[in-house]
């Protein structure tokens, strides 16, 4: 009897393993940037719910948590590829993690598609790492145009998180455009996890900054905004897609009202595709609120990988990786996605501001 049960179990297990296609999702579900991971996971899960199959088989998503940490980014990538035997990977989220984990994907020839890593180094000299979002050379231009042209700033203090490739790259692209526009820029430095920015804010104010630009992540953006307002800085604060989570408002409160930031998508922006309508409708029905930027990017990443598997017509890792790179005019939520020869998507930047504790869509800047 026991033997029979065992045989049945083995048969069931082997059927379930053979009949599903495993896709890895390596996201920061805990740690400093967990809010991004949680939102992207919502989007991936929603897309999986709506489109659970490809090539007539079920897709199984293996979620791995990289703790927002570079070392764990490498470990989880190894685990996904070597132990979980995934055919492709959704991830990772912040640039420094995708740069670290991307090296593993590259050496094993597994496609890794990042929903949100914007630093150029993420896909530089990589054949297997791609992204469905814009990259920072363009976001930097958009943020600088916002600061110097739209907001009329002339002397901007840039708060740079020295630990994050994203922040350093984004700040430098912002500075380059600022120089072209004839504006002045100086840097203040901090690192992820810092809590006290009073010295940097005081320094920036003594150098007569007329705007702050914070190309970092939401925890520090909120704290810098609070401390800037407390120390009597009333001029504009500008930020990037790192601010596009509700936590910015929850932590920052009153201090982040009037904050402008560049981002990938806002549910208030005009919907360009059928998928965008479907996404907003399905999300609102399920959660009773409007979806966020990163949820949309998670949704898109899943769809892009699913589409690549379909076009590859097999579960061969190499074929899928090549199909990802051949993605062309895919009608995603955040825009029409074409992945170019570098693995980057060329997309427009949305400008969003915070008004009375809510994200309000402002304009779109096209490349």
């Amino acid at each position, binding site marked *: 009897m026991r033997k029979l049960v065992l045989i049945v179990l083995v048969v069931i297990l082997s059927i379930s393993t053979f009949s599903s296609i495993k896709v890895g999702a390596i996201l920061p579900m805990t740690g*400093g940037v967990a809010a991004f991971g949680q939102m992207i996971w919502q989007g991936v899960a929603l897309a999986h719910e709506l489109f659970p199959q490809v090539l007539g088989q079920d897709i199984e998503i293996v979620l791995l948590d990289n703790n927002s940490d570079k070392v764990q980014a490498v470990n989880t990538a190894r685990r996904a590829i070597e132990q979980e035997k995934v055919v492709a990977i959704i991830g990772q989220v912040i640039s420094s993690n995708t740069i670290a984990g991307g090296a593993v994907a590259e050496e094993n020839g597994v496609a890794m598609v990042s929903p949100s890593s914007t630093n150029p180094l993420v896909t530089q000299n990589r054949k297997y790492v791609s992204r469905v979002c814009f990259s920072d050379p363009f976001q930097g231009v958009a943020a600088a145009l916002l600061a110097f042209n739209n907001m009329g700033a002339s002397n901007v203090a840039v708060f740079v998180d020295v630990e994050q490739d994203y922040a350093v790259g984004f700040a430098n692209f912002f500075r380059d455009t600022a120089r072209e526009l004839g504006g002045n820029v100086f840097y203040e430095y901090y690192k992820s*996890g810092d809590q006290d920015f009073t*010295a940097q804010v*005081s*320094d920036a104010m*003594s150098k007569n900054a007329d705007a702050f630009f914070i190309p970092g992540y939401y925890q520090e953006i909120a704290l810098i905004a609070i401390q800037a307002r407390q120390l009597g800085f009333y001029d504009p604060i500008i930020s990037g897609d790192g601010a596009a989570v509700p936590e910015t408002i*929850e932590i920052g*409160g009153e201090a982040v009202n009037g904050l402008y930031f560049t981002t990938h998508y806002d549910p208030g922006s005009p919907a360009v595709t059928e998928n965008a309508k479907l996404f907003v409708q399905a999300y609102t029905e399920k959660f009773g609120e409007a979806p966020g930027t990163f949820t949309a990017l998670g949704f898109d990443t899943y769809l892009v990988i699913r589409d690549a598997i379909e076009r590859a017509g097999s579960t061969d890792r190499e074929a899928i990786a090549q199909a990802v790179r051949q993605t062309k005019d895919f009608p995603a939520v955040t825009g029409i996605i074409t992945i170019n020869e570098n693995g980057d998507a060329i997309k427009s930047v949305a400008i969003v501001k915070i008004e009375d504790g809510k994200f309000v869509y402002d304009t779109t800047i096209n490349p």
Partner: protein
Amino acid sequence: MDPKTLLQNFVNGLSLGSLYALIAIGYTMVYGILRLINFAHGDIFMMAVYFAFFLVTLASLPWYFAAILAIAGAAILGFSVDRVAYKPIRKAPRISALITAIGVSFFLESLAVVVFSGIPRSFRTIFPQFLNEMIILGGQVETRYGREVIVGGIRFPIISIITLVITAIALVFLWWFIYRTKIGMAMRAVSVDIPTTSLMGVNVDRVIGITFALGSALAGIGGILWAIRYPQVWPYMGFIPGMKAFVAAVFGGIGSIPGAVLGGLILGITEIMMVGLLPGAAGYRDAFAFFILIIILSVKPSGLMGKPDIVKV
């Protein structure tokens, strides 16, 4: 740095240093009595903030009541940690206790990730907003962006004044408690010689338990004040403040309570001044704190107010 910025940075440093000082008191007290560096101090700090957070959000208690319960919770947690983790190895070499403390620290952090989830939460609306208002000295009223604001002036958060007052109260209370009460006398006896104290009929485990409870309550108070000033809660929030408090305690002379306060204030002010003077090196401010630690340990190992160890031959 112009004089106004210098003064503002001094005030910023005092504000940060007062928090370090308060956390360092509990650290140094436990060390002074047990010769144990309780690395879990920063994690009890974190747990207390979570207790306060959930007592207000889930149990909808008023903030003052939640604060008192959270501090009591921290004391009970500190007491239990001693019973479960440190008591069984009381007679083992000191290094075992140190490693156990590091283990407890990791355990509490991971427990918080599992139970409270790893997403940072906002502590902003938990306590009344006036605590984070600023006292402004000088400056003039101007209209900016359609509303009247005060521009310029030296600014000091109200919460930092409260922190300084609480630190002073804690200092006086501990002095009274350690030097003027019976249990304090027992603590001092334990710090000199545990077996002999035990032979005198003192319940050593109870005394050590109370020491931990008191130290943890101080960590809890520090945690709540910290979270009001920097309003976010997450499982690793205690790590860096705990480390800084450790540096402050060593700086002041580990085991010396007034030394810890002095060390905390000096560390806070030098850290802010260093960022103010060398803005380009601001990313290395934590490294700077540990650099100070190395200098002190090599120049004056007993710290500013510590007693030098007498080695008997």
